[in-house]
């Protein structure tokens, strides 16, 4: 096809015909002067010159020359590749694997962490809160009046709103006639909240300022999920009344799917409807969220916010401390938060994988080009231009890159599909993961660059080599000398290093996970059933509808009735159940012996739980010393606490006994006596060991919002029993989030496991790439040195010795690379001790094992082609050359 196009190009010009006529005229001229046919012919040809060369010259002047030449080179490249299918397809395959896998991972990370929410111009949405460095970097919240401060003093805002810093405590119970009431997570927000996010309701209208007035009629905005699951996706719902917490709310709209912000929110209600919230600067439980006008830099906002908070601290010294500082964070960072480290590890791993693929296939192409020096020399000797040689090899590289890209898309798509299926269900928005075009183009262009560079640069070098020597040596020793060979050696070292880093990271995380799981979470009773059962009443803070006394009474009565139910063996209540996200109550603490009673220190913080008697037994938390709480630890008796083993360890290290020592939760708070020591338990994450303080529900003001029970029946029946007892006491309350302790632990572990699967996958891919890279390099070297090997065999060299000679150099490079990689891992991962649990990145056994594995794999990959080459019939090899 290409030749026909080329012919068309030429025919349109008719230059050959013109020159043919010219030739005839010259011939006739000679014949007319009496020359012989032969002499006339010779004269005419000599006079006209090299017609072919002239044609080429004219042809290259044509404007479309580039296209045509490109097509010609591409065609030649296709033929070359078809002739040497093995190496080129291997190079393309390696590239495809690298591009596909790294793009797949990046797309997942992008879907889950980088672009978590479907808000337009997300980068201009910022979250504002405060920290007080004097109190140990802990978060200070804003109060409603500060919304107006922000609106009036920060310039460049499109909209500003405030929302609570946590989802906790605003849930509503939806009454559904005869059906059992359900609990829906709810967030009170100021009326411009959705305008800040940039999303309009799918049905109905947005909040307006008239909805958000003290005493305004209650209205509610539904999430798509709540609308579908709880209200039957009724399109006529807008304008109707629903009953929540015993109060009527008018539905004003339904948000589109995916607008779950904060994560888990099922509905939104206006915030500024409570006099106490709107006016009091002391009522701090909020954070601000703002949308910037286009083109306003974040740095300017940070400056203005800092200035504003400084001024407010000066104007209201009674409310604010002088040391508080504003924090301005982009929404995406705010949401990724703790996941950031893993994000970076994953991104680094996918970049490493891409690099490994590029190196591996580059190496292969480099070897091919080197092996073709003889062919290149022949082409040059036959009059090919240097540019043509470079263009030819460049076309081959481009073709390999093209194949790799097409295959890479396929690999990426299927990898995404498989990974999404493998992933735990609770990773938000993972199912939305799709091939990320940006990352694909990044990976693809880097792969193309690698393929191109590894063909064009050696071609350029080859095109400049002295012709005679290249031809004379027949490409035998040439391919093993010079700078290109050094480049290839560097490639092997780098690849070994990169692969070792990936494998070691995967191995370290696997070991860390294993020791995490085997150490136990502290909750021995995996069958215990936990559920959210918080009391809801009318108003913004639904719990405030109940007095401390009535609440304690409710839980006390409920639990004694549950315990009396046949099938139940234990029941208790707790402030916040274990592993409920990463949220929790932090309280500052100090022991009496540390202070001597003085106030004013900045105190460390620990996890705080309020529990009823029997809590430890229900969840299987061992009580190591002292006693559990009982009903006599009441508001009127001496305040007591139970502390965790790690915390008790601190007391012991100070040379005192934990039992009987006195502790207070904050400077100036009342002293509590330690009556018990419980074993350590992991409340925030199964990967995180912390210290805990437990208080009795009769002595602490916080509500016990979660009920935990254990019994001889399945979880569903146990929770039904609790629901029945609860309905006897108050039919308007609901139970939500029923899960056994085992489920909570598994759900938490799922994330770690998923990370592990990804890392292992990376490691395996990297090992495949490394071994195929080494295999191909050795195979190419063997082909290039065929003659030398044949001579040595003919001279009686032993096969084993020959193979050893061939491999020792390469294996030395692999080992050097491994050393570099091990050093890098020890340096990078060892720097952050929180990344790993129960295993050190500097553990020589782990690194040794991984290095040994990689060595064996590399050795296998190198041994096979070398052994084959050494086994070849020397006579056949010599004759073939």
């Amino acid at each position, binding site marked *: 096809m290409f030749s026909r196009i080329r012919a068309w190009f030429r025919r349109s010009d008719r230059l050959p015909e013109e020159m043919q*006529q*010219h030739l005839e*005229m010259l011939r006739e001229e000679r014949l007319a002067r009496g020359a012989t046919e032969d002499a006339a012919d010779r004269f005419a040809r000599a*006079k006209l010159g*090299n*017609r072919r060369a*002239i044609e080429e010259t004219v042809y290259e002047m044509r404007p479309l020359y580039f296209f045509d030449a490109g097509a010609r080179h591409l065609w030649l490249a296709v033929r070359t590749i078809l002739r040497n299918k093995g190496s080129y397809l291997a190079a393309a395959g390696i590239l495809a694997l690298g591009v596909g896998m790294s793009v797949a991972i990046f797309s997942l990370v992008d879907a889950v962490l980088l672009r978590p929410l479907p808000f337009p111009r997300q980068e201009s949405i910022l979250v504002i809160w405060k920290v007080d460095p004097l109190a140990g970097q802990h978060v200070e919240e804003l109060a409603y009046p500060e919304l107006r401060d922000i609106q009036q003093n920060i310039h460049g805002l499109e909209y500003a709103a405030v929302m609570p810093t946590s989802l906790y405590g605003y849930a509503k119970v939806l009454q559904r006639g005869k059906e059992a009431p359900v609990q829906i997570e709810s967030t009170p927000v100021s009326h411009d909240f959705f305008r800040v996010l940039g999303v309009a309701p799918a049905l109905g209208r947005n909040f307006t300022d008239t909805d958000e007035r003290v005493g305004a009629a209650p209205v509610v905005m539904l999430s798509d999920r709540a609308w579908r699951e709880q209200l039957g996706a009724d399109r006529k719902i807008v304008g109707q009344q629903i009953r929540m917490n015993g109060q009527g709310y008018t539905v004003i709209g339904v948000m589109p799917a995916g607008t779950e912000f904060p994560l888990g929110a099922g509905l939104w209600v206006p915030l500024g409807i409570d006099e106490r919230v709107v006016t009091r600067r002391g009522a701090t439980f909020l954070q601000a969220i703002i949308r910037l006008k286009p083109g306003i830099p974040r740095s300017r906002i940070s400056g203005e916010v800092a200035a504003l908070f400084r001024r407010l601290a000066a104007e209201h010294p009674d409310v604010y401390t002088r040391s508080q500082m504003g924090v301005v964070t982009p929404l995406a960072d705010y949401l990724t938060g703790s996941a950031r480290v893993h994000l970076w590890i994953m991104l680094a791993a996918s970049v490493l994988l891409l690099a490994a693929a590029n190196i591996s296939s580059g190496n292969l192409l480099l070897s091919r080009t080197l092996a073709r020096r003889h062919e290149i020399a022949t082409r040059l000797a036959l009059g090919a231009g240097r540019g043509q040689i470079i263009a030819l090899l460049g076309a081959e590289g481009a073709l390999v890159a093209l194949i790799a890209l097409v295959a890479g898309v396929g690999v990426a798509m299927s990898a995404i599909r498989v990974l999404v299926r493998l992933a735990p269900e609770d990773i938000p928005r993972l199912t939305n993961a799709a091939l990320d075009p940006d990352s694909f183009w990044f990976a693809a262009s880097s792969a193309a660059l690698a393929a191109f560079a590894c063909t064009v640069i050696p071609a350029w070098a080859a095109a400049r080599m002295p012709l005679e020597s290249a031809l004379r040596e027949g490409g035998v020793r040439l391919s093993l000398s010079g700078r290109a060979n050094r480049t290839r050696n560097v490639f092997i070292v780098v690849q070994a290093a990169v692969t070792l880093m990936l494998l070691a990271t995967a191995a370290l995380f696997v070991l860390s996970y294993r020791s995490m799981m085997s150490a136990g979470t502290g909750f021995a009773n995996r069958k215990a059933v936990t559920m959210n059962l918080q009391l809801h009443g009318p108003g913004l803070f639904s719990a405030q509808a109940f007095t401390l006394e009535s609440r304690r009474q409710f839980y006390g009565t409920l639990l004694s009735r549950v315990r009396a139910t046949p099938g139940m063996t234990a029941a208790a209540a707790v402030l916040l159940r274990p592993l409920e996200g990463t949220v929790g109550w932090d309280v500052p603490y100090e022991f009496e012996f540390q202070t001597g009673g003085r106030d004013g220190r900045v105190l460390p913080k620990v996890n705080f739980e309020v529990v009823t008697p029997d809590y430890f037994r229900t969840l299987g938390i061992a009580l190591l010393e002292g006693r559990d709480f009982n009903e006599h630890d009441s508001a009127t008796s001496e305040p007591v606490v139970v502390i965790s083993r790690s915390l008790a360890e601190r007391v012991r290290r100070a040379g005192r006994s934990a039992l009987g020592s006195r502790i207070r939760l904050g400077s100036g708070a009342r002293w509590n006596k330690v009556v018990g020591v419980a074993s350590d338990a992991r409340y925030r994450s199964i990967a995180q060991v912390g210290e805990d303080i437990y208080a009795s529900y009769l002595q602490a003001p916080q509500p016990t919002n979660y009920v935990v029970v254990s019994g001889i029946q399945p979880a569903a029946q146990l929770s039904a029993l609790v629901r029945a007892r609860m309905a006897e006491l108050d039919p308007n309350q609901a139970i939500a989030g029923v899960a056994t302790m085992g489920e909570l632990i598994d759900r938490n572990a799922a994330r770690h496991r998923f990370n592990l699967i990804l890392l292992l996958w990376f490691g395996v891919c990297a090992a495949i790439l490394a071994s195929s890279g080494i295999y191909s390099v050795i195979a190419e070297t063997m082909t290039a040195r065929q003659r030398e090997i044949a001579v040595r065999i003919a001279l009686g060299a032993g096969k084993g010795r020959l193979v050893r000679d061939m491999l020792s150099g390469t294996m030395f490079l692999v080992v050097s690379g491994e050393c570099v990689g091990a050093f890098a891992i020890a340096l990078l991962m060892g720097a952050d001790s929180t990344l790993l649990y129960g295993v050190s990145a500097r553990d020589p056994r782990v690194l040794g094992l991984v290095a040994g594995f990689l060595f064996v794999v590399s050795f296998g990959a190198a041994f096979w082609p070398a052994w084959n080459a050494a086994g070849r019939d020397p006579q056949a090899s010599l004759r073939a050359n």
Partner: protein
Amino acid sequence: MQDEPKQVEILQGTLNMMILQALQQGSANGYEIAKFIEHRSNDLLQVEHGSLYPALRRLEANGFVKAEWRVSQTNRSARYYTLAPAGKRQAVIEHSRWRVLVRAITRVMKPA
């Protein structure tokens, strides 16, 4: 004085000028142009006939000459080149540039 050489190579860049000059006489094909240059120079200038064609194509691309296939006097079909108006102007320009160059070089080479 030494013997003058019998033949010389064409100076770089003068081929275009000579082609334009040849076409001042009327249209001609490649063979006739080559012959014109050789005759006018008393066979001193030796043209590799083929080398005319890249030059002709370039002149054609610049719009200095036009070309069409016609039948020659010897009954052959050949491509005939004719000077375009722009080519006539170009011929004058190149000629005067050449004269200046020759004068200058002659002065340089004059024995002191």
